[in-house]
Each structure stands twice: as structure tokens, then as C-alpha cells.
């Protein structure tokens, strides 16, 4: 079932949770709503579920206006951050709940309910836990029960509100992969709210980035990571080095193209740590800055360096392959030349962006 979100706004007193948000989620897609806390992502999810009512705009579920539908009639599965399992019911009863409370006309027979619950417990690999109570399960197991419970009523849309954020890193990663597998199996239209960019980029077909109640960008994980539409998105999706216009002007950009030239003073340049090139010797014709090595993190597949630009003392983060690092044989206090392979420029207002490749110098 597709979800069309049209011009949704929501205000809490003087706080604007959502302002004129529009978004289309295709049938069978897994979309992540990604943003920092207070960006409105959970509010949007609760509005889709019918747990909150928007001040303006409309939600179309499969082309039908949902505003007049009560949360209990929208055919939605909801998974909560803190599981919200029924604590006095066994795991079996938890999963069966949605089936048992259906109106007598739609309610399946006892045998059918039993069959369906077994099927779901099999899906989440918790068959042997049927008689236990939620408090006897670990966090990861509880969240799997919560998912089984949400899926039991065959929802047309599955909504997940930061489902893994209360779990430790390892379990979180497991459940993430597992959620993706289940989605590939069932093809339920799914909306996942998260503040974890890694989670969003890894699991979702599409990622919508929210900030201050607005959608900053929506696209495939690849598109979003490679071509951030705004400084915010750039900053939010991982480490980045910022070079303000002043820095750029001082060191002069090699080929400032077209319209950028005129207001070069007010430009911000973004370079990801792995996009920085380091060398002990300056290749001919390459503009670069000189920096010293301040810190070396060499645990993991990549080596991360903190550098300090000699001229102004600004810190810069760089990431190298282990091989390249060994080639350079850098140690603390060493001096290196640094230049970006590519740099993305934004106007100070964050609107216009421009990508400069190899020729760029800082």
C-alpha cells in the first residue's frame, strides 16, 4: 500500500514539529525517516499511524484519505522504541492480541489464531518462548515479539519508531539485517524512524532526511551520501571537514567556476575525511596546505588521522587505507601536504552547491 503525505504541518504550542512536509512512499518500499531529535520524524510517523492528528495537510493511504480513519482501523502495524509488550500476557498471547480483539465478524477461529501465531513465532525464531512473559526475554527478543505482534494482523503498512535504539550495538546490527530480510520476504510497505545514519543508509530503499520539521532531501542511500543537497545533510551523514570561505579565499581556489567566483568570500567547502589526499612531497602544479599529524587512530580497517593546518591551526580529519598509511610512514608531529580530491561548495545560505574535482586546491 502506498503512502502519500501532502503538506503535513504540526505545531505544539510555539514549537513547529512539522511544516508543510510532503513525501510519497511507494507500495512495498522500505523508507527511513532520518534526522536528529526534534526534527519531527517521530511526529510524522505517529501522524501516519493516526496517533496524532495533523494541523494541516493530508495523508493518503493507497489513494484514500486517512484523516477520518481511527488509528485502530488503518490496518497499520506499529513497533515502539520500548517494545510496549503487554507485560501480563505470555509471548503467545501478545502476538495473538490483534487477532483476538477483532470484531466477531472478522475474528479468526481459535485454531486459525493458534496457527497464525505459531507461524509468526517461527518467522521471528521465538517458537520456544511462547509460554514465557516479556520480562523473561532480552531486549532484542522482545523487539522481535513486538514485530511479530505487529505483523499478526497482516498490516498493509509497518511503522517502526526507533525500534533498535534501546539495544546494544551488536544486537542492533543483527536485528537490522534481520528486518531487511523479513521485509524482502513480506514486501510490506515499511517506514522506519531512526536517528542512526548508518542504520538508515544500510537498511532502507530510500532515506528521507528531516531537519526542523522539513524534508531536507529524499533519495536512495547512495544518492544521499554521494550528493548531499545541503550542508546539513552533508554534516549529518558522517564526518566532514568544513572549509569556510575565508580559508578558501586565503589559499585561493584553483578553478572557481562560474557564478561562484563573484562571492567566493561566502562559500563553505565540504570534504569528507576519505576524500583528502596526503603526501610528503608536493606534486608539481598541485596546490596544497601543509599540516602536522596530531593524532593517529589505527584500530580498524582504515587509519584515521587528526591533522593541524600549520598556517592557522585548524583541525582536519583524514582517513587513509592502511596500505597508504604504511606507505607514508607517518608518525606524530610529521608534516604532510594535504589537498582534496574533490570538494563540494555551498553558498552561505546552503542553497547552491557545486562539486569541484581533482583540480581543486585549498
Amino acid at each position, binding site marked *: 500500500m502506498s503512502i502519500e503525505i501532502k503538506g503535513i504541518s504540526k505545531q505544539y504550542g510555539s514549537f513547529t514539529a512539522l511544516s508543510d512536509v510532503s513525501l510519497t512512499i511507494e507500495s512495498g518500499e522500505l523508507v527511513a525517516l532520518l534526522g536528529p531529535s526534534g526534527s519531527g520524524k517521530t511526529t510524522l510517523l505517529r501522524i501516519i499511524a493516526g496517533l496524532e492528528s495533523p494541523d494541516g495537510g493530508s495523508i493518503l493511504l493507497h489513494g484514500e484519505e486517512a484523516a477520518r480513519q481511527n488509528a485502530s482501523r488503518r490496518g497499520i502495524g506499529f513497533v515502539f522504541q520500548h517494545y*510496549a509488550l503487554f507485560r*501480563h500476557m505470555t509471548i503467545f498471547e501478545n502476538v495473538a492480541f490483534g487477532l483476538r480483539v477483532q470484531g466477531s465478524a472478522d475474528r479468526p477461529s481459535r485454531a486459525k489464531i493458534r496457527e497464525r501465531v505459531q507461524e509468526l513465532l517461527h518467522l521471528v525464531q521465538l517458537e520456544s518462548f511462547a509460554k514465557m512473559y516479556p520480562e523473561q526475554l532480552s531486549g532484542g527478543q522482545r523487539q522481535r515479539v513486538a514485530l511479530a505482534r505487529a505483523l499478526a494482523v497482516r498490516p498493509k503498512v509497518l511503522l517502526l519508531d526507533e525500534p533498535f535504539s534501546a539495544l546494544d550495538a551488536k544486537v542492533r546490527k543483527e536485528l537490522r539485517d534481520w528486518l531487511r530480510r523479513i521485509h524482502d520476504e513480506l514486501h510490506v510497505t515499511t517506514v522506519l524512524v531512526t536517528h542512526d545514519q548508518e542504520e538508515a543508509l544500510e537498511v532502507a530503499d530510500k532515506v528521507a532526511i528531516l531537519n526542523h520539521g522539513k524534508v531536507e532531501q529524499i533519495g536512495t542511500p547512495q544518492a544521499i551520501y554521494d550528493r548531499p543537497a545541503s550542508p546539513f545533510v552533508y554534516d549529518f551523514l558522517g564526518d566532514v571537514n568544513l572549509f569556510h570561505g575565508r580559508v578558501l579565499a586565503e589559499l585561493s581556489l584553483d578553478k572557481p567556476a562560474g557564478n561562484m567566483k563573484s562571492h567566493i568570500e561566502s562559500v563553505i567547502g565540504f570534504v569528507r575525511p576519505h576524500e583528502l589526499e596526503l603526501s610528503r612531497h608536493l606534486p608539481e602544479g598541485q596546490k596544497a596546505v601543509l599540516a602536522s599529524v596530531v593524532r593517529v587512530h589505527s584500530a580498524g580497517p582504515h587509519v584515521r588521522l587528526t591533522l593541524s593546518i600549520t598556517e592557522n591551526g585548524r583541525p582536519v580529519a583524514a582517513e587513509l587505507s592502511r596500505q597508504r598509511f604504511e606507505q607514508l610512514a607517518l608518525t606524530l608531529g610529521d608534516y604532510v601536504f594535504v589537498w582534496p580530491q574533490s570538494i563540494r561548495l555551498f553558498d552561505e545560505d546552503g542553497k547552491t552547491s557545486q562539486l569541484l574535482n581533482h583540480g581543486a586546491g585549498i
Partner: protein
Amino acid sequence: MSRHGNNPSSAMLQPTAPQRLGRASLILLALLFLGGFLILPVVAVFYQALSQGWKIYFESIHQQDVLSALRLTALVASIAVPLNVVFGIAASWAITRFEFHGKNLLITLIDIPLSVSPVVAGMMYVEVFGLHGWLGPWLSEHNLHVIFAVPGIVLATVFVTFPFVARELIPFMQAQGSDEEIAAVVLGSNGWNLFWRVTLPNIKWALLYGTILAASRSIGEFGAVSVVSGHIRGQTTTLPLEVEMLYNEYSFTAAFAAASLLTLAAIVTLVIKKMIEMTSGVHGVPEEEEVES
């Protein structure tokens, strides 16, 4: 930690001599206080009641007036307590699950019976329902008797016990949150199923706890009931009033015999209360929700 010798917890376990002395004297003081002000008086009640032997004790209890007072007390409690349960659940539900104007006012109002002297509560009812009160003339025209009759006693008791269930449930339901209820709604549950299958099972122990407190108060209430009852023997006298009347008539043994019934009721309540605490973990405030790290 043991490598460093004394750690804080072992220091706690092995107090120095002055510490031990201080602790012992504090415990002794508490015990003396408890004995003098609580245990001794309770024992005295039973001692007096039984001072002329079991035979007299049972005869005192079997008096017509005492029995009818006992019946009236039971009747009043059996009306007031269910009313409070219904009101308590409704009020706590409204306060913990909805946002509305005047919520704080409602919370304050619920507490009024606890801060107003019961005698004043009784007088308020006399002022409203009494023969010369606001509704008095209308009531007597329709031959309805509230003051100096059973309805007045019930009203006064309901007023005094008003906060008990609600005050027990509100913090409990606040701490529990409404996640499970929201989950139930999203799963398609209607209000009826929501209440009976999710809410009630979750609050049952706190509810029972509050109910027991309300019951014990409604059995023992004296002040408010005394004002509205009129002390008509065999008709509008509850057990606490009967005790006072017997006492004022110098029927000490009979007074203490009746008092011993009230004391027994209190002890039974305490035991049930303790049992609820042990089986459910309810102590007025629910146990901390386990938090995953």
C-alpha cells in the same frame, strides 16, 4: 578492590564500637516508642474487652445494637467502596491518559477530603441536605431522608474515602505510561477490550491496594459520620459510633468488645495489604521499569 584492604562496604559491615552503641540505642528508642504508642494500646483494647472473660465478651458483641451497627457499617462500606473504585479508575484514567484544561484543579480537588477535617465534611452535608439546608425543604417534600439517615452516612463516607483509590492509581499509571494501551489501539482494539484486557490487568494490584485502604477507612470513619448520623441506636449508628456511645454510658467492657472488632478489621486489612505488597511489588509506587542499556 580487596587488594586495597578496607573498602566502603566492609566498613559498613564492621562498625566501630561507638557506631555500634549508637545504632543499638537508636533501635532501642524506636522499639520503646513503638511499644508505648502502638503495641501497648492495641493490647489494652483486647485486655479490656476480655477483662470479664470470653462469655461476657461474646454477649457484648451479640447485643442487638452492636450487631445492627456492624450490619450498617458493612452496608456503608459495601456501597462507598465500589463507588470509590469506579470514581478512582475514571479519575486516574482521565488524569494520566488525557491532556485537558483544569487537570491540575482536578488533582487538587481529589485531595480535598484528605485536608479537610471529617467533622467539617459532615457539616457540609448537613448544610446542603439537612432539614434547614439548601436542598432540605425539597427533600422533605418528597419524603427523602438524607441527614440522620443511612444515605447521609453513605455520602459522608464516600466523601472521606474519595481520594484513596485515585491517589494510589495516578502515580502508578503515570509511571507505567500508556505505551501498551496505544499498542492495543493500533492493533485494532476497541475501548472495551482495551480496558479489560490491557489496562485493568496492569493496574489490578495497585487498584486492590487502594481499595483496601478505602475499605478500612470507610469501616473506621467517625467524624463525618458522627455529624450526619443522628446517633439513632439500631438505625443510624455505625460501629465506631456505637463504641463511643457505649463508652459514654460507662459500659466499658462492651465498648472495648466492639472496639476490638474494629481493631481486628484493621489488623486483617494490614495483613492483606502486606500480602499484596509481597506478591505484586506494589508499594504505592510501581517497580522501576527495567531499562536496557
